[in-house]
């Protein structure tokens, strides 16, 4: 692996992919939308990252920064007017998520190699059926467990997601937000996929439940899975991630180890620093202004109109180099 996990966590077993081989390799991914009236919206621009087994990468940013479009691209869920460039290869020998057709995605990828933990579990679960019947159906669809063993396999999946077995015969509306989230996670874990993508898994949960949900997701990482978490919740990202990628106006502006980013020496990109300073447990000061519209991005650095460190040099687009895309990154050694 190119990036060692923080020393506070045990080294990942990396049992699912050979040493040094990422589970997912995203390279130069761009997504544009052609809108009626000729508007051209650049939602994701030139995004690259790797994700290894036993690693959690958190993709953070404000709403509208492109992170959910990125997630949709990886899941093959983009609308028809989207134009996609770049690659997102499942390693070691998997298909490219961006070019594979829907049949391939649903037959060999979804649930089997890639599990999705959705944003609103209640919308993902079928309201009229019990959790047990949904789990068993998913088991039947994506594994070759014989009929007689379905029940046991469904219960195993529930256990893996810490879903209480005595709640399996309930319907989704009879579950609290936390249990609905676990039910959705159990569904994602049925196929034992080595790679999980969680899209805003903690939205609407209160803090205690956020912590618990995040800790449960982390367990699957420590079991050797790769996890991409897309979230606007920085506290959740700090709790779960080995690395963070900060997105702004469609681009990754900083990619760093989570301990360095949230702790010392801290973020290096002025936007990332502003985002952390906005937290109520930190300075609670907002970043002035609002993110730019994605169909009217300024030339050069998109953060320049809001950036306290901007100079004339920022009229040229800064490349992502050494983990930060900025002409004047903050000093690595901060007092």
């Amino acid at each position: 692996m190119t990036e060692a996990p923080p020393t506070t966590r045990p080294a990942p077993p990396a049992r699912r992919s050979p040493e040094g081989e990422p589970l997912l390799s995203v390279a130069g991914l761009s997504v544009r939308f052609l809108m009626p009236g000729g508007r051209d919206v650049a939602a994701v621009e030139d995004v690259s990252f790797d994700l290894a087994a036993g690693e959690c990468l958190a993709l953070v940013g404000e709403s509208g920064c492109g992170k959910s479009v990125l997630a949709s691209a990886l899941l093959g869920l983009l609308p028809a007017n989207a134009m996609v460039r770049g690659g997102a290869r499942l390693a070691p020998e998997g298909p490219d998520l961006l070019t594979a057709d829907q049949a391939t995605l649903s037959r060999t990828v979804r649930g089997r190699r890639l599990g999705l933990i959705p944003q609103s579990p209640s919308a993902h679960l079928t309201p009229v059926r019990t959790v047990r019947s949904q789990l068993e159906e998913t088991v039947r669809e994506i594994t070759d467990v014989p009929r007689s063993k379905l029940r046991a396999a469904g219960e195993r999946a529930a256990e893996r997601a810490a879903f209480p077995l005595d709640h399996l015969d309930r319907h989704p509306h009879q579950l609290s937000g936390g249990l609905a989230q676990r039910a959705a996670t159990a569904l994602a874990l049925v196929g034992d996929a080595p790679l999980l993508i969680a899209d805003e898994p903690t939205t609407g949960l209160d803090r205690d439940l956020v912590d618990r949900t995040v800790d449960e997701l982390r367990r699957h990482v420590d079991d050797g899975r790769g996890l991409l978490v897309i979230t606007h919740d920085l506290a959740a990202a700090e709790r779960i991630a080995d690395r963070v990628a900060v997105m702004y106006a469609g681009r990754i502006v900083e990619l760093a180890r989570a301990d360095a980013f949230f702790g010392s020496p801290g973020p290096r990109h002025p936007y990332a620093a502003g985002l952390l300073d906005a937290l109520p447990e930190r300075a609670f000061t907002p970043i002035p202004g609002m993110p730019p519209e994605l169909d009217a991005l300024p030339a050069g650095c998109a953060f320049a109109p809001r950036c306290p460190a901007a100079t004339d040099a920022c009229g040229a687009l800064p490349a992502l180099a050494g983990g930060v895309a900025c002409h004047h990154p903050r000093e690595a050694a901060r007092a």
Partner: protein
Amino acid sequence: MLELERITAGYDRRAPVVRELSLAVADGEAVGLLGPSGCGKSTLARVAALLHRPYAGTVRLAGRPAGGFRFRAPREQRTAVGLVFQQPRLAADPRMTLRQLIAAPAHATGRGDELAGRVDEWAATVGLTTELLTRHPHQVSDGQLQRACVARALLLRPALLICDEMTAMLDASTTAALVAVVEEYRAASGAALLAVGHDRVLLRRWCDRVVDFPAVQSNRSETAPTSSPSTSSTTEAKTS
């Protein structure tokens, strides 16, 4: 400014989500009401804003008992309270531009012309450009729409502001920006605040004191709040 006395409320008389709850917010005071989602604290906020009639208990605004609830609430009591909800999309008429949305309370009280200038002032205060004011809700982000909803809530200069999970859908920077707008308004006007939410860190940073919503009975599941024998509130000091 606001006194809630032994309020029992909900949507089913046999299983009220708020039971005999009392809470007071003094003039100029900021009180945070903390509780998990779905615990009934939003119902209490709606009672305080005279939008929901309780089964039992008394609501007093500025010392005077509520003259009615919902459409029966007297205008001067209704307009003394500004309200911001969690989901700006549910609280915004999709046919209106953001400018019309912010101005709606002025028109509803027949003061549209008088307050036209104030609409622009508030829009600027919450960080909305003139161009954004011409757009409809579906053409702006949740954060931009919530900025408009805050401007709308402050337009009539309420003596009490009730924010029900105002920032739950927002990112950290927009949250900090809107809390700053509310606090500037309160510093200038002396208005009181009831901020309802589930984020303890945020409420402790924002409010003078934070009250835990008394846990309610629940038959839902083990992760629902555990019931507490007492309905008395615990308070904590502000952290900063």
